[in-house]
Every structure is written in C-alpha cells, then in structure tokens.
C-alpha cells in the first residue's frame, strides 16, 4: 500500500483558497469541484484528489499547512480511504469538475 493525499471537505470548503491545485507537481491530480462542499451546506466548493494520479509527495500538505494555514490535507494509506476520486469518474464542466467517489482499491 502507499500514501495518497486526502483533503477534508469540511475544512477546505470553508475557505476554498485553491492553492493546492496550483502547487501540485502533477497535472489534473488535485481537482476542484463547486458542488463538493456546497452540497453539504458549506459556503464554497472543495478541492479533491484524483488518487490514481497522486504520487504521494505531500507537497500539497506543506502548502495547505504553511501557506494557506488550513491544515486540510493529510497523507493516508490508499486502502484506508473508503471512497475517493478516480480519473475515470471525473467529469469536466464549463467552469468546474464533478467526481463520483468510489472505492480506490479493487478487490
């Protein structure tokens, strides 16, 4: 098993700085959804991680903790995530993305 980034929607959707989307070295790995967060009653949308693309560098954790001061991202073993976003379940819209969350581990 290996570590991937996991973003707390509760914390992220309260501020929604989007810094992590700009500092991840991997393309289309930390995505942003207007719906995720708002559908749970929060003010903003939230960032989320396409875990099949995450290389586990934790750069987003440093950025979230030290630049944004949000502490919303933690590194978690992928089999400890009950549901996560995968590239094949992400849909692009006009201004945002949506993701259907599914179990990241097969079997």
């Amino acid at each position: 098993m290996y570590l991937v980034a996991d973003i707390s929607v509760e914390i992220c959707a309260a501020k929604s700085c989007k810094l992590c989307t700009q500092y991840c070295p991997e393309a289309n790995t930390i995505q942003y959804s207007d719906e995720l967060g708002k559908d749970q009653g929060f003010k903003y949308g939230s960032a989320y991680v396409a875990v099949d693309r995450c290389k586990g560098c934790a750069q987003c954790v440093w950025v979230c903790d030290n630049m944004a001061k949000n502490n919303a991202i933690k590194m978690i073993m992928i089999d400890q995530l009950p549901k996560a976003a995968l590239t094949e379940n992400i849909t692009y819209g006009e201004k945002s993305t949506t993701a259907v969350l599914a179990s990241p581990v097969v079997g």
Partner: protein
Amino acid sequence: MSLDYVKFSNGFEKFMPKEYRDMVEHGPFGKKVTVSQMGNFKEVLEEHPMCAGCAMTLFIRLAIIAFPNPEDTITVGTAGCGRLAISQAAIPFVYGNYGDQNGVASGLSRGLRLRFGDKPKDVVVMAGDGGTADIGFQQVLHSWFRKERFTTIMLDNEVYGNTGGQESGMTNRGAVLKMAPLGKKFEKMDMVQMAKVAGCAYVATVVPNNPRRVESVIKKAVLIAREVGSTYIQAYTSCNIEYAIPTDKVMEDAKTVENDRYQFTEYVSEEAKQYLTERYGYKEFLAKPAAPAAAIPGKA
C-alpha cells in the same frame, strides 16, 4: 499546428481514451486559461515518469498553462529530466540531440515564419542547466546573438540529475554531489548577465513557488519572442533527489533559495516594453503619472 489537430477524426471519438476526449472537449485549446483556474479544466500536460514532488515538474506544468496559444506552440528540448514531462503534453515536442536545441529552434522558428507569415507560431525551448549552460552553451549564445525570435527556458536544478549527480556549470561553488565528492571549485555561471550582453529582449529569473509570477513571466517572454527578439527565463527547479530535499519540503526550499540567491529579477528592453504596451495592452510599463506637488502651507 492549429485547432484542427486537436479535433477528433470523424467516427473515432467513441474509441478515444477518456483523457484524450477530456483534452479535446475541456482543454485550454482556443481558450484563455490561467493558473487560478487550475483544477477546473483538462490540462495539456499528462501523466509522466518524473519523480514525486519534483519542482521542475511543477514549473513545466505552470509554464505550459501559461503559453498564450498552446495550439500554436512547439516545444523543443534535449536530454535531461525535463523532457520526460514536456514530451507528455498534447503539444508538439522536438527532441534535439544533446545541446543543439537552440540550433533546432532557430531553424524551426524561421521555417514557421516562412510558412505561416504573420500568424504567430511560438517556439519555446525548455532544457536543463546542463543542456543550456554546458553542452548547449555555444548554440544558446549564438542564437541570442543572432536575435532568434523564440524563448529559451533553463530548468536550473543545479546538477546533472538524470545521470547520477555530476556538477554542472550552474552548480554553486562548494556544492558536494554524489559524482562531485570534492565539491565544485568554480562559481555558478552568470547566464542572466550573459543573456543581457548577448542582446536578449527579456530576461527573468523565477522560482516556482509563485505560480502567478511564473505565468506572467512565461506569457511576457513568449509574446516578446514573437516579434522583438530572443527571450530567456532561468527557473530554479530543485532536484530533490540529488540535493536530498524531502518531497514535502520542496516548496520550503524554493522559498529559502528565492530569498537567498534566486530573487525574482526581470529585465525588459525598451523595445519590448513598447511592444507589450502597444500590441498587448500591458499597462505596467506605462510612465507613472507624476505625483501631485505637496501643498505648501499658507498657499491656496
């Protein structure tokens, strides 16, 4: 090299992989995208084999987003880490022999001007410090002296990271590396000063811990290279493997190095300032209005 090549061939759409369909339908081609929209559109850069947490990858990602017209851009590279990612983008990439990337780009840039006339076709060279300052040094300098109209970007990781950690001309004096155990005995080459001496119209140093600044610098460099002359960007993109930087501390290192010896600098020639102002509406180079004279006590 146009929007035509990012369309589906008739009847093939349903057979294309999801990533390709997303790129055609929701990519940046023919639109204006900015770094603040990252995470909301399909990027030109795809998955690549570069190391986890690599600052060079982040810079390449930001640079490709900043290209003013990605559908009309060709990148040129050479041996080195960077080409592992640059070649995984949905824009044409020319892989030169080691060190000849600026020679290849010179011919390419001239050929595109002959073929397409005034329609802008941007050529951007992205190579490492070894490819630019050591092995490609002669062709880089000559392309600048000839005022070839394309952008040269040095991905400066201050080491030959791809081959095990030999010192390069851009390595700092005293740096001890796996393949330079006695420490480098000479100073880091001042390529910024050389670019100015060689007549580059735009020269900038940048660190990828400020995405908006990277975007601004790349845009200006590519636009100026369309008509004015050579442009050069030197980007600090640390090698977390050879310099043993923990991946979650890569941005902390970038910040430290930026404050220490890699401050943001920007040189824009007068001709380039005028060009950006008149052609693309840049306001930052306009003369500042004179401050109103301080009121003199006792006078109306």
